[in-house]
């Protein structure tokens, strides 16, 4: 196993901006993810999180500013070189033709194969190991269409692992997973960061998952960075209520000492209002 210093690569953006048909989606966003770090990207719907992920993954080359993977500008990078370093797990994938799970995971070897080359037995072993790490080894011969969304998402994560990425971009990868598989997925993400030095930038909506698993957080609002820093610095009552425009209850998880954030329902807000001295 290689040391974290040699295996992982950094992700960074410098004053990145992007417009969809003239409408600004991101403005002046600068962030940095070091090898071995798990960094969370949070913010309300439409705040530009997925756009930032897509820019770093190379599918939106018409961005302003600079976006770099391993120090190389994304806009001018060769697709295959980028994919050999960087894997992306989107929120949802649609699969066209009825490939089997193992065949889907083997697609992760694409950037490492030349031309028409066939996957070697080593590639197949790697794909099987990736499936195993994602708790999906038993699905190997199933057709992808026959799986539940949660199972599919684990297969997609296994495909990302088979890519042997040195940096990972995750766009709400756990939204279809039950709590056990959410935890297992993020445990695995942390393990990759710690043992392989993989740099991880992940979009998530669950503030408690973010508090538990992320080293640092960027909070986006209306395409700009509203707050950035360590989780306990960013997840303050003031930041969260301003950015998400809703009431939250912030406490400490007695077991882990991490932050505990509960969004308040309309009923809970009324209870709160009655308790407050008028």
């Amino acid at each position: 196993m290689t040391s974290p210093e040699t295996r992982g690569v950094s992700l960074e953006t410098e004053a990145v901006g992007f417009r969809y048909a003239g409408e600004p989606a991101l403005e002046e966003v600068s962030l940095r993810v070091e090898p071995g770090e798990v960094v969370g990207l949070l913010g309300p719907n439409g705040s530009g999180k997925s756009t930032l992920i897509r820019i770093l993954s190379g599918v939106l080359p018409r961005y302003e500013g600079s976006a770099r993977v391993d120090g190389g500008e994304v806009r001018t990078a060769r697709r295959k070189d980028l994919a050999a370093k960087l894997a992306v797990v989107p929120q949802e994938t649609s699969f066209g033709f009825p490939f089997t799970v193992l065949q889907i995971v083997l697609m992760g070897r694409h950037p490492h194969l030349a031309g028409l080359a066939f996957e070697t037995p080593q590639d197949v072993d790697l794909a099987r190991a990736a499936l195993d790490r994602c708790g999906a080894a038993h699905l190997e011969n199933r057709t992808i269409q026959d799986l539940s969304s949660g199972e599919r998402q684990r297969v997609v994560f296994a495909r990302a692992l088979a890519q042997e990425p040195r940096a990972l971009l995750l766009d709400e990868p756990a939204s279809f997973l039950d709590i056990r598989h959410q935890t297992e997925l993020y445990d695995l993400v942390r393990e990759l960061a710690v043992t392989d030095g993989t740099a991880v930038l992940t979009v998530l909506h669950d503030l408690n998952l973010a508090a538990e698993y992320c080293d640092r957080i960027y909070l986006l609002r209306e395409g700009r960075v509203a707050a950035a820093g360590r989780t306990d610095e960013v997840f303050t009552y003031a930041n969260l209520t301003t950015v998400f425009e809703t009431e939250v209850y912030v406490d400490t998880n007695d077991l882990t000492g991490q932050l505990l954030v509960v969004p308040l329902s309309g009923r809970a807000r009324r209870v709160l209002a009655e308790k407050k001295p008028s």
Partner: protein
Amino acid sequence: MRSSEPLTRKRLLAWTLALGATLALSVLMGVGWGTGSLSLVDLMPGGTPLSEQARAVFFDVRLPRVLAAAVLGGALTVAGVVFQALLRNPLADPYVLGVSGGASIGGVLALLFGFGGAASLLGGLAVPSFAFLGALGALFLIEWVATVGGKLTVYTILLTGAIFNAFAAALIYFIQTIASLEQLHAIVFYLMGSVPLLGYRAVGFLAASCILATVALLSMARDYNALTIGEEGAAQLGVDVERIKRRTFVLGSLLTGLAVSVAGLIGFVGLVVPHLLRLLLGPDHRLLLPAAFLGGGAFLVLADLTARVAVAPGELPVGVVTALVGGPFFLFLLRRRGSRYDFA
């Protein structure tokens, strides 16, 4: 050899040989069976020596026609496979992107101008030449319209192709109303699709072009696999999506244009055979593409044989046979396997 297993060199070779043998067998059946007195037994070593007339039937009529059927079936099936992959749509066929409409206009115009006879301009190749020019014209026009901001958008190609085909159909109806009865008959027969009688030189040219295009498409087979998960997902796996789309559109359209130019609109081969092969072999394009060329060839050779002998001494347009067999078969497949596709 389950289709679910990862593709290996050995499995590819085994299936290619098996389908190659199927094609060879179909060709043998095609040349050995027909309305004349010639039979396959006569061709075997030790059979009765061939008469002058039988030799002529064999070498000048049946063999070139069967070879042309093999190449055309292969070309149409390969075009069907790559268009289905490009558009991520299992219902795509070689004609869906409009090039066939351009070829039809060209061919029909040539017939209207009276270039149809073998004695006329270009020794019988006037109609295919005009049709191919029409196909090229349509190709450039559709690519130009569908390129937005330097990108070829799949929905725009599909829409442009559909509209161009509708336009072509209207233009052809117009031509049919002003054509003489004799011309009308030639036009209708041309459009229905049939395997033409070409000289060896023309068949050779057709075969060489189609094989070259197929090999070029085969070089992108792994990219088509990745495109299954969508353009963005494929790009994130390292596929140069724009380049792949453009090359596929051009090469697939050239294959279609060549096929329609010489044979008219032979339907269903390019739609049904890809699905049949996917059922048999799984969706990996590295295997699917060579299989499409060989299996599609065998399918059309047998369909053409049926067209020749079914209503002997008359002859059916082969497009009628492929659609009569292909239509119900496709519905059967759709009923059984339709839910296996997931193009959200």
